[in-house]
Every structure is written in C-alpha cells, then in structure tokens.
C-alpha cells in the first residue's frame, strides 16, 4: 500500500529524516515509536503533504487502486486525502465559526466524488455521521460546535477520530492521538481504529507510549531515532521499549532530548 524508500527530509538546511525505508501492506497496522524530536511528526506531515519540508532524496509510492505506483510526493494534500490518506494531527487546528458538521460534510463529499460516488444529501449524511458518533460514544452536540474551537485536548483527539471514521480512509496515519487521553478516551479511540481495520486498509500509529498498543495490536513496530528507523520488530518490541527505554537503540551520533518514553 505504501512504499517509502530512502526518504530524506530537511527543514531549512537542517536534516530531520535521514533515509527512511518502510513498507506498509494492506491490512497491516504499523506502530512508529521513538523519542521526542526524532522526526515522527515530520514523517507523518510529509506523507500528508504539508509544505515547508524539503524532500532532498528518496521516494514515496502509494499503491492503492486509483494511484497505483504514483509518486505520492507529487500530489497536493487534497489529492492525497481524496485518494484515501488521512492524518490525525498531533495538534489539531481550530477553525473558528465553522461548524464541525460543515467540515465533515465538505470533506466527505469531496472524498466521495473522487471515489465516483454521489454527494450525500443532508439526511443520508446525518445518518452516516450519527452512526459514527455512536461508535465513538460522542454526543451529537459535537457536530454543531466550531471545529476544535474551545475543545479540550481529549475532545480534539476524539474529533480527529470522528473525521477518520466518517471519511473511512484506506491509509490512516495517527500522530500521537493517544497522548493526553485518559484511559476511557484511549479505549474509545482504539475502538474507532479497530472498527476501521479491514484487509484493504492500513494504519500507521505514531506513538510515544506503548499504552495504546495494548488496545490496537500492531503487526510491526518501528523505532525512529536520529531520523532513521533503527529497529523494527513485532508487537514484542514495543513491550521491550517499555522496559528498557530508547537509549540502547540510539545511534552514537544521535543527540536526544529524552532518553526514556
């Protein structure tokens, strides 16, 4: 589904990612872990198409039916979204005055059009959204609040998952959706992600902690440090990191702000 080869990314003239290789196949869940500042969000943002990062080498190919083998990096963010890529932001943005329901509807319709489906009318749309609210144990009042405005940290994260549930992406990238959540919220988020699991979909979980992985069991775990994937393994690797921290995996040159999760 996703094939990242030797990806190098800089911000300004400072290299952040220094040769990432990653293969994500349909049906898989990948966890990307690593200390603060190791480049996890950078990777997530580059995959979603954020401008302001310089890709200095490497390639990212998205192997989905519409875009078989296409260079993902050449696409605008909205094209990637319409092709089924979704990023749950580590820091979701506030859009004052715009009701959540308005954004959800525009987003869903633009994605549906791309899939060759018709726009949903108001009634069908509301039905769809309400079933997702129920799945995530969210109150309907969420729909009529301005996007993320005045939301608590936990509400913002849940709102990202609501958007994901409505858009039903093929590749969902969750950037630290678990941080700042209490255990109940964490379970709800995990429930939302698990409900999305499908043999034709894939999930990349960027997380700092092992905790979330108790609820969403990954097929692969990767440790990002110093801009590289320094170790890959199965779910057991996450447990090992929980015990031993990241220190033993850090390349000598890597200077890190934080040695333990």
């Amino acid at each position, binding site marked *: 589904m996703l094939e990242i080869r030797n990806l190098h990314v800089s911000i300004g003239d400072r290299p952040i990612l220094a040769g990432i290789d990653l293969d994500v196949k349909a049906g898989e869940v990948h966890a990307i872990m690593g200390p603060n500042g190791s480049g996890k969000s950078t990777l997530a943002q580059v995959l*979603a*198409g*954020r*401008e*302001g990062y310089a890709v200095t080498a490497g390639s990212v190919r998205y192997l989905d039916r519409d875009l078989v083998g296409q260079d993902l990096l050449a696409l*605008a*963010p*909205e094209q*990637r*979204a*319409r092709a089924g890529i*979704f*990023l749950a*932001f580590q820091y*979701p*943005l*506030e*859009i*004052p*005055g*715009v009701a959540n329901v*308005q*954004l959800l509807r*525009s*987003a*869903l319709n*633009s*994605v549906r059009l*791309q899939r060759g489906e018709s726009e949903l009318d108001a009634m069908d749309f509301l039905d769809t959204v309400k079933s997702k609210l129920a799945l995530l144990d969210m109150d309907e009042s969420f729909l009529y609040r*301005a*996007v993320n405005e005045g939301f608590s940290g936990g509400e913002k994260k849940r709102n990202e998952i609501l*958007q994901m549930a409505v*858009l039903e992406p093929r590749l969902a990238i969750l950037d630290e959706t678990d941080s700042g959540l209490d255990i109940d919220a964490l379970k709800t988020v995990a429930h939302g992600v698990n409900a999305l699991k499908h043999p034709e979909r894939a999930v990349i979980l960027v997380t700092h902690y092992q905790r979330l992985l108790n609820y969403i069991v990954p097929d692969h775990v990767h440790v990002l440090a110093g801009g590289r994937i320094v170790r890959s393994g199965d779910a057991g690797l996450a447990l090992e990191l929980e015990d031993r921290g990241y220190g033993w995996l850090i390349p000598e040159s890597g200077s890190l702000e934080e040695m333990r999760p």
Partner: protein
Amino acid sequence: MSQPEVSHPDARNAELRSRVADEYRWGFVTDIEQEVVPKGLSEAVIRLISAKKNEPDFMLEWRLQAYRHWLTLTEPTWSSVHHPAIDYQAIHYYAAPKSGSQPKDLSEVDPELLRTYEKLGIPLQEREALAGVAVDAVFDSVSVATTFKDKLESLGIIFCSFSEAVQKHPELVREYLGSVVPYTDNYFATLNSAVFTDGSFVYVPKGVRCPMELSTYFRINARNSGQFERTLIIADEGATVSYLEGCTAPMRDENQLHAAVVELVALKDARIKYSTVQNWYPGDAEGRGGIYNFVTKRGDCRGDRAHISWTQVETGSAITWKYPSCILRGDDSVGEFYSVALTNHRQQADTGTKMIHIGRNTRSTIVSKGISAGFGSNAYRGLVKVLPSAANARNHTQCDSLLMSDHCAAHTFPYIEVKNPSATVEHEATTSKIGDDQLFYLRSRGLSEEDAVNLIVNGFCKEVFKELPMEFAVEAQKLLAVSLEGAIG
C-alpha cells in the same frame, strides 16, 4: 439581535421580483433619457434638476441651501483612504446613461465581469442588465408590478422612488427629509442634498409589519439613479420593515464618485432592518478605475423601544468610506451594526459605525469583520458616545481583522466617549492571519485550497452572515468567494 419576522421570498417570488424590476427600470429610463445637463455644479444646474423633476418649492429651497452650505466646506481629509483629488466641476449632475458608451451586447462587455456573473449563477438576461447592455426586450409584467404594489398599498405601505414620493407624498418627504442627516452634516452628504437625483422611499404605517423584504426595486433604482442616491425609510409606531439594498453581482458603472445618503426613522416600538451588499466596481488589480463610495447612512431611533439594525457586506468599490450609524434617542432603544468589509488588490475601505446613546437603557452591538487581501487596506472606525442622559446604556463592540497576505493592512480606530457613569462599554479587537496550518488541515481533509479559504473566511464572517436574510446570506458567501479568488499569498 433577532431579526424582524419577515417572510423569506421563495425562488418564484425572486423571479417575479426581478421581472417587476425590469419593468420598473424601463419606465424610469425613458423618463430621463433626453436630459443631459452640462458638466459642473452651479445654482443654475440645481434649479434645472429641480425643475426637470417638477419639484415643489420646498425641495428646491432645500437643495439651494445645501449647495450654498457646500460652497463653504472643504473635502474632509481625516479618513485613512487616499485618492487623487476629485474634480467636482467635471461631473454631470444630471444625465441619463450615455447611450454611446453602453455596450450593445455581451460581446462588448469586459470578459472578467462576465466570468464573475457565470460563477455567481446570474441568469443570462440579468447579466445583460447588470452589465449595462442596452436591452430592448419588454417584459409582459405590468400586471405583476401592479400586484406587487397593490399588496403593499393595501397595507398602507408606501414603497416608491424618491421622485415619486416627492410628487405624491410631499408632506412625508417634507417632514422627514434631512431630519436624520441634515444637509449640513458633512461634505458628501451636503453635496448629495444639493444634487441628488433619485433613490428609494419607504413608509410603513403604524402597527404594520411589512410582509416582504423590500429589495429588487432598489437593485434597479440603483442602476439608474446614478451617483447621488437618496433613500428615506420611515417606520411608524410599532411598524416593522426589512430592506435589502444592492445586489450581489458587480455592476458596471461609469460614475467614479458615489455619494449616497440613507436616512432611517424608527418611531416608538418600530423596527428597521437594513441590509446591504455593496459590490461596485473595485478597479483592476493595479488599482485603476473603480468607484469611490462615500456614503452617509444614519438611523434615528426616535421613539422608545425602537430598534435599528444595519448589516452590510462590502466587497466592491476602489474606496469605501461609510459609517452606518444609530441615534438611540428613545428609552430602551437598540442599535446594531454587523459588517463584513473585504478589500483585495488596491482597494481601500474606511468603514464602521457610530452609536449615539441618548435615551435611558439604550443598547448597541457592533460586530465588524474586516478581511484584507492583496495590497488592500481596511480600517474600522467606530464611535460609541454615551450622553449624560443615557443612564444604564450598554455597548458591546467586537472588531476582528483577518489578513490574507503579507502586503495588506488592517487598522482599528475605536473612539469612546462616555458621559454617564452607569454605562457599560466593552470593546474587543483581534487580528489574525489566515494560517498555512489551517489551510493544510482543511486540505488534508480533501478540500481544495479555494474551498479551504472560503470555509475559513465564512467562519470568520459567520456572526454577520447570520444577520442577513437567508437568500442574501447565500449570495454574499458566493460573492466573497469570487472576490477572494487567488487571494492567498
């Protein structure tokens, strides 16, 4: 803050109204087609205008007084707008549209303007009218026009051109003309008082709720009444009226200077809601051409519990200079001002409001949303004045600016004068730049960049749009989208 309960016209109604309007337009044009007065301003010109319009003596006298006063004034320089000097002797103060300069068909019209009409979904026939094409089709709508007028007349509502009101209801004109904006008020209002040619007149009698939005008449009026319009709206005790000025398609216009005056009078328990969409030609991207729009709009809450609400969406004109205001004379009277002003390219806007609290327990609300794009410059200028008599007066002002580029500017000039210690006056102001992060967030949900910009801008304007009659609000959103095309950067 609630709207007067006036019915939202359905689509059929809208169509009828536009046909009525077309009829009206033609009636009007033939009236003045022959008459062109030489350029320049003098007592002779004013006498001529008044004579052509067959005005009663009091009108001529009033115009002459205004003219004599105008001669003693100099053009104001206090606003933050800049423009080359206006040559007042180079203007035709009374002229039908110059037929030679009118396009014969749409192929002669600026393609940029046509593209905009297409985007706004304006019907073809209407596009021609807006673009000033000399259409000679006559619509079979005399009876429609009559039905429309009959309905209003049966309720005692007078809704006609200002000229007609002068002929048919001189006593009302005489009583109320200049009673809110005296001819001595300011340079442009004084000029208007001397030379105005036409505009709209509304009178709603005691206790009557006007059952429809009064609108399209003006759309057409505005096209032909030229640069010095005069509008007078009177809501008698307990009356309610909602008036829509302007239309949401940019109009081709040859007049550079527009100096209109609008006077609203709300008596005891009356309610007037006045909504404007102003989108005169803004000039091209380099700032050439475009209208100078210098308007004086004021409402007088003359009785207790009177309520006047101004809502405006300003996207046009090269220069806009306008401060719709409320005089809160009656006890418990309420004034509201909701404004969206957008400047793109080289446009300049200096707009805001004045709330003058005189009565006890008077309340005012100001919500101003300024959007600056390109090299546009946008200033909010507002005065809240609480006189010693205005015990327990309350004002809340919210003044927000949104910047779309690195070259545009936003300024806020709030003036507050409080002479009664029991008053509460609150002012909040924010300035934000449309963020790359916000845009990326929305685009990562599948929205195009253009849709993302529009969503953010509409969210920013929401508090104002919700005050507009529904039909108008939808059009206003479309208009903002068109005005902002390619504005990001």
